[in-house]
């Protein structure tokens, strides 16, 4: 870039955009992330509009059609009780989408808050929070949920989401804590401290963005994990109870019949795989958008290289 063009850019001055807009722009430019978002949107559409498309209800059996393969009447076929698999699948998808995403967001959020605070503040805060994490780790989560969930029957699936999240964040928190401890020794954190930036602001603006790659990967893994652990709990009669269904319960019920009656298993399994894949695509895009050294940034770096010579 020559001196003249530099002058021109000075003349046409604009306030530079901030980090959020930059990252959003990079996210929008990532094809993978866009695909993921579109797939997720379609899944939500299917889950919440699907029940109105079919005359069948997820619970009411059709005694005229037991274990029928997919047909014009029952699009995904029926199960042994004569319930419509399509109605069941979209109903289950509703539950699983919400549970998976909410558990991932809640548990990762909690993990980053606790981990970053423990790592950043150190001292007694660290000791108390680490003790809490260790305590939660040694609780047998499955048993505790099993004990508590009957009492929460009235409060519905939200309580169930909270329970799943509360027993899922500890290991992530420990990793975040150690990452924060090394980050807080870095000079840019010291610089922010000396500027008078408040501690939680430092955590929000400097610590969390620098551990975001890990957080995002952790959250995307949690999405799939939450759907499956919900299924495991439902199998034992906690969480989603019959006749209500989720993708997890459908999978658990259909797994044994899969070789003989594939429609009982593969529609639910396919949707779950699609869901987790979409979440991963969005996560990858988000990670690259937040990490300036990642692939989409490389084009920008090249142009910077060629213009670097203009200044020192």
């Amino acid at each position, binding site marked *: 870039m020559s001196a003249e063009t530099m002058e021109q850019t000075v003349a046409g001055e604009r306030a530079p955009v901030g980090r959020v807009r930059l990252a959003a722009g990079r996210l929008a430019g990532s094809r993978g992330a866009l695909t993921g978002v579109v797939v997720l949107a379609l899944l939500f559409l299917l889950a919440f509009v699907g029940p109105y498309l079919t005359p069948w209800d997820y619970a009411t059996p059709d005694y005229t059609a037991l274990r029928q393969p997919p047909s014009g009447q029952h699009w995904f076929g029926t199960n042994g009780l004569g319930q419509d698999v399509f109605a069941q699948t979209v109903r289950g998808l509703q539950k699983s989408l919400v549970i998976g995403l909410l558990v991932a967001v809640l548990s990762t959020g909690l993990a980053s808050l606790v981990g970053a605070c423990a790592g950043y503040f150190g001292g007694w805060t660290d000791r108390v929070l680490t003790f809490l994490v260790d305590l939660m780790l040694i609780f047998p989560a499955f048993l505790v949920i099993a004990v508590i969930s009957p009492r929460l029957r009235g409060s519905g699936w939200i309580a169930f989401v909270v329970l799943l999240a509360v027993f899922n964040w500890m290991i992530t928190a420990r990793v975040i804590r150690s990452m924060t401890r090394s980050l807080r020794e870095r000079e840019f954190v010291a610089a922010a401290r000396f500027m*008078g930036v408040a501690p939680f602001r430092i955590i929000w*603006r400097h610590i969390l963005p620098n551990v975001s790659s890990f957080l995002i990967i952790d959250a995307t893994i949690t999405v799939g994990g939450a759907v499956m652990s919900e299924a495991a709990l439902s199998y034992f009669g906690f969480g989603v109870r019959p006749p209500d269904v989720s993708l997890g319960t459908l999978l658990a019920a259909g797994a044994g019949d899969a070789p003989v009656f594939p429609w009982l298993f593969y529609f639910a399994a396919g949707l779950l795989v699609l869901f987790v894949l979409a979440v991963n695509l969005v996560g990858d895009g988000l990670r690259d958008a937040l990490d300036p050294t990642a692939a989409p940034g490389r084009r920008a770096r090249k142009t910077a290289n060629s213009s670097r010579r203009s200044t020192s």
Partner: protein
Amino acid sequence: MTSPLLAVRNLTVDFGDHPAVRGVDLEVHRGETLGLVGESGSGKSVTALAVLGLLPAAGRIGGSVQLDGRELVGLPAKQLAGIRGRRIAMVFQDPLSAFTPVYRIGDQIAEAVRVHQPVSRDAARRRAADLLDLVGIPDPKRALDAYPHEFSGGMRQRAMIAMAVANDPDILLADEPTTALDVTIQAQVLDVLRTAQRETGAALVLVSHDLGVIAGSADRVAVMYAGRIVETAPVDELFTAPRHPYTLGLIGAVPRLDGRGGPLVPIPGRPPAAGELRGPGCPFADRCPLVEDRCRTAEPPLTGGGTHPAGGGTHLAACLRADHLAATRPAPAEVYPVPEVPAADAAPREEREPVLAVSGLTRSFPRYRGTLLRRRIGETFAVDGVDLDIRRGETLGLVGESGSGKSTTLYEILKLAAPQGGRIELLGQDTAALDRAAAHRLRARVQIVFQDPAASLDPRMPVGDVIAEPLLAQRVPAADARRRIPELLRQVGLDPAHADRYPHEFSGGQRQRISIARALAVRPDLLVLDEPVSALDVSVQAGVLNLLQQLKAELGLAYLFVSHDLSVVRHLADRVAVMYLGRTVETGTVERVFAEPRHPYTRALLAAVPLPDPAAERARPRLLLAGDPPSPAERHLGCPFRSRCPVHAALAPEQRTRCATELPPATPAAPGVDHTAACHFPDGGRPPLGHAGTDPACPPPRRG
């Protein structure tokens, strides 16, 4: 002339598609010292490693390296191993990682002997002790049994040299041997290198980025740029009549201990990164003020410039304008554009308001042992009596070796809290008496620039956000903060359009400018600069130093400039404070302290700084300081410097007791003179004033 000992012809090294060395020719003769100078990424270390065949596996080597007529390139590893250490030995930059931590020093040196010589274990051990003695390690018999971590950096580098000369090699390759060391230790190690060279008669290839080190040690110099040698000449000629504009620029860009005033000569642009691909033509063309159209068509060869026989064929330059430079011999400032640095406001010092006043500052850290049952086993006295005084528009240089407590002092000041001991007054406010709101307001008036621009900028934040951060911290509305970003970027010489790029997209010098812009955002009164240029290349450093001078004059800033580099301090500072072992031992105006240092430590420090001028360097009296600084873990009764003090060593016994029992207070040279020294016998025990220069009353220093 006899045939060269080592002849490198058209050496090329590339890593994948990235050429790191692109055709280097070198000749080293028996007993001479060849200096290889260049900035980072110029390929000087790769050249040294390629000679030894020590390149990483990804590197492809071409051309020829001949030792006494024997080709080394392509030699089987086993035969090469017989040459390494025996005929060519290497001294590495980082003495910490060059020794195996789990073996004793003596065993490692003995191993080097036994690998190449059929001697008994005992003989090898005796030889190792002799070698340690040669490099000046006290009590060599005991040092044999020490582990590497028990040695200080300087001691380790000496031991490294001992290991290198164990088999009387013909060639000693030293790759930045003193870069990781303090100046006084650097002087010791360079001296040891010279001794080792003299004792063994080896040729020395000294690779360095420091022109001062090269000027003082080398006989011939080769300057590297972008993987090629651009100029080679005998040392005196190179420094007095450089024929390549890059060499000329380098000489002009170095701040000097013996000169002052005016801006430095920055070379525009930045040095190309290692292996960066370029178009045809001279790689320096983009930065060169003498560039012509023909420079861009083909890369000029390294030739002797036929019209000027002065060099006698030994002065070669790879520049089409070499004859022009040889004929006119311009000063760097006549060739390179030099920025105008406005003169600072010149009100007398007493009339300016104080910005920072520190008196008797102390800070110690408890040391613990044990993990389960932690018990306190002592204290480290990191800062133990620091006095500083800065007025508006003034630069105070804080100088000291590593471990002298400079950084701890800074952090204590910036904490804006009550210090452990002593008193800190910032802009007239005692930091001990500040409440939270007042401390927060004060933060806007003191800002810091860190040493490493790569570490002090958040890699995940665009530079616009980085610069706006201190404003946001002071609760400036976000929109207003954003509007100031372009102006700030322009102020430090960057393109405002780059505000939404991330730090990694900038070069080192540019990142340091971003750091400065961030610090200036809140219009501070005091800028604390913690070694702001020591991570930068010389040619880039000059630009940043000029910027600092310009900003100071324009904005009336005060600087607390911490540095281990006395030349930079001499160039930039108005006043200087010298620290040793957590104490300020000498303060005063730069002119006085550098011309008539009163404390023996300051004298030694100044004498240790190499000058980038071979003639002046040879003419200087040499004053080597023995040993390493003592540990700050124990409190010293009396003067902490006396264990290394040349004045103390020459005193009569009854005078010595005073040094041993009484802590010397800071006393001014004369009433009303801004120059104090904390020494019982300043000026070498003679009456102060009435003399000039560094002529030491100290005993003649130990040489080799």
